[in-house]
């Protein structure tokens, strides 16, 4: 028996060393190599594209995190400030807010540049400083009222044009009429620089203030709060509804034509352009239900509609991934269907559900189009304190700034994009962390 089979093998065996076989082998290796190099090439292209985007955003945006300040000797004129001796702190604050700081700044500037007398020249000298310089002086007085009557050096926020000049975003080589800063202004700035009065500081205001018409004063805080409130509403609505629908569809719903149609529709909804959800939100929540325009409530509801399919699809996948053996074990012990789902299936699928939800939320965070439709594109300076107040969101803020003509908003746009990207990376990181932390082995 054994001998025959061995003989048979020898007869039918391929001659692996024949020229034909060697050539075949070589061809196979070449094919593998070509496939591998194409794969690496496409991966490399994708990475390079990503790198180009990141580098261009970073190189433009990084200067958005710094601000230019000019140290000026300001005479805190007691005649302008008036009598503050018997005021409480609160009264003092109201009083300081009402005094004419501009006059103080102008007279200090005239003291420094005595030869500047023409009204227009004084005005262009004043333009070197931001409107925010006035609050710098106010804060200095409130910090220490003993400076009233004295001349003290105060670091003042420079205007956007000076800021751009210092950062090199406005070229000195361009003819005067083509740039926003005049030759005379440049001479003054150079004088400040030579006196060592110009400094570059970290721009905390960018994180703590709201939008502004002045690029140097504009910040992302109100947009961030708006985004947070919107996402809060989105999560509160879409997570329970999405997970509930997923559980019902996956575990309890009868498998028939109706549930098939529902499933197909949910899958299709995930691919519907987001602006259509915006139109839907406009029609239903604002025009029909008369909810407040521009509010995180409506934004959140609209984004919830958009996020629901994502959450349902990922939650269903996570629930489906729970091994049937676990369900059988619970049912075999006499657990009811409901107990099986809530004691075993849901806890085991929770990491997957959370991952999907966070990715859905990240998608909602970056969404702009639906928010434009429901009016969250307004110019909002104040930070919203509730979900019914007018607000804007981070991506919309990026859109608004990108649309602004001022040179200073260019770096702000890129800086805001960096913040948005940072939030997205944090959220995706959280999703990965959750998945790894709670992943159970069966």
């Amino acid at each position, binding site marked *: 028996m054994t001998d025959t089979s061995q003989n048979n093998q020898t007869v039918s065996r391929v001659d692996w060393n024949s020229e034909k076989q060697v050539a075949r082998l070589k061809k196979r290796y070449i094919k593998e190599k070509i496939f591998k190099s194409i794969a690496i090439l496409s991966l490399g292209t994708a990475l390079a594209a990503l790198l180009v985007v990141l580098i261009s955003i970073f190189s433009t945006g990084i200067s958005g995190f710094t601000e230019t300040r000019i140290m000026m000797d300001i005479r805190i004129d007691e005649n302008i400030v008036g009598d503050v001796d018997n005021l409480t702190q609160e009264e003092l604050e109201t009083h300081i807010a009402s005094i004419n700081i501009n006059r103080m700044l102008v007279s200090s500037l005239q003291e420094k540049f005595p030869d500047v007398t023409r009204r227009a020249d004084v005005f262009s000298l004043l333009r070197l400083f931001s409107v925010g310089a006035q609050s710098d002086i106010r804060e200095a007085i409130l910090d220490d009222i003993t400076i009233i009557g004295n001349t003290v050096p105060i670091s003042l926020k420079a205007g956007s044009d000076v800021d751009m000049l210092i950062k090199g975003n406005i070229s000195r080589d361009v003819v005067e009429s083509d740039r926003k800063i005049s030759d005379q202004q440049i001479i003054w700035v150079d004088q400040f620089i030579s006196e060592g009065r110009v400094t570059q500081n970290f721009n905390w205001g960018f994180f703590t203030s709201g939008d502004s018409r002045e690029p140097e004063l504009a910040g992302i805080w109100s947009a961030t709060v708006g985004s947070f409130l919107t996402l809060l509403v989105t999560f509160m609505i879409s997570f329970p509804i999405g997970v509930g629908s997923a559980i019902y569809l996956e575990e309890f719903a009868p498998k028939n034509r109706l549930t098939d149609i529902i499933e197909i529709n949910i899958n299709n909804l995930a691919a519907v352009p987001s602006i259509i959800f915006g139109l839907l939100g406009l029609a239903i929540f604002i025009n029909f239900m008369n909810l407040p325009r521009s509010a995180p409530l409506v934004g959140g509801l609209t984004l919830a509609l958009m996020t629901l399919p994502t959450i349902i699809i990922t939650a269903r996948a996570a629930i489906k991934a729970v091994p049937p053996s676990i369900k*059988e*074990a619970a049912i075999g*012990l*006499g*657990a009811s269907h409901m107990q099986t789902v809530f004691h075993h299936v849901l806890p085991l699928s929770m990491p997957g559900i959370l991952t999907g939800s966070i990715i859905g939320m990240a998608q909602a965070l970056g969404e702009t189009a639906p928010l434009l439709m429901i009016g969250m594109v307004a110019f909002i300076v104040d930070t919203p304190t509730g979900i019914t107040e007018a607000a804007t969101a981070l991506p919309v803020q990026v859109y608004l700034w990108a649309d602004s003509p001022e040179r200073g908003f260019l770096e702000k746009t890129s800086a805001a994009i960096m913040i948005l990207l940072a939030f997205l990376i944090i959220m995706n990181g959280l999703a990965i962390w959750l998945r790894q932390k709670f992943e159970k082995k069966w």
Partner: protein
Amino acid sequence: MVNKMNILNVSEGNTASVDLTEPKIKAKKVNVYYGDNHALKDIDLNINPNEVTALIGPSGCGKSTFLRCLNRMNDTIDTCRVEGNIFLDNQNINDKKIDVVQLRARIGMVFQKPNPFPKSIYDNIAYGPRIHGIANNKSELDDIVHSSLKKAGLWNEVHDRLDASGTSLSGGQQQRLCIARTIAIEPEVILMDEPCSALDPIATAIIEELIEDLKNRYAIVIVTHSMQQAARISQKTAFFHLGKLMEVGDTATIFTNPTHEKTKDYITGRYG
């Protein structure tokens, strides 16, 4: 301790009062369909108390399907339809009025692949008593966990790590954990679906010893692909073939003197 004694007494009392000549489960004309596929045809089979009944037969013959009829596990399969009557102590379990949750607490099941919950060993055992409200307090629950692990012969191996995950145990230990989990709710019948097919010979020997021991308290129905296992541990053997119950009788008779030609072929390993 008093409570634990109570539980034991009750179950022992039950065992004592059972009429050993009366079958625990009587299946009458059971037919099962998966869609259009007629999987089980007119099965009549009695399961006796304090006995191991082995179901043997080639793959796809319907023995697992029959086993899953006994605790209505087939309810979970949408396309599956069961006809006929199965009596547990003269109560028809296919009756619409029967609460299937209670039924499955009375008829426990051990599966082919060990399937402990991804929870601690303690919680694995305690889950059944918790959902059925068997234990009144923590110490009673502790006692149930202790006695169940003891009866499943696992106590000595895991008593110092009850908090460890059930999935961290070896395959054989996991299967004994599943058995302990089943007996924690004191069922009357234990169904085993090829409980040793995923285990090595040593773990298999331990489980077989355990089954030998458990049959003094429960009626056991076991599906197995191993002739030797059926011969070793069962008192009664039923041979299934193509959805039909070909032959049933004392294990000794079936293995030494089968009446049916097919049974003989299968047992001697000519096919299957």
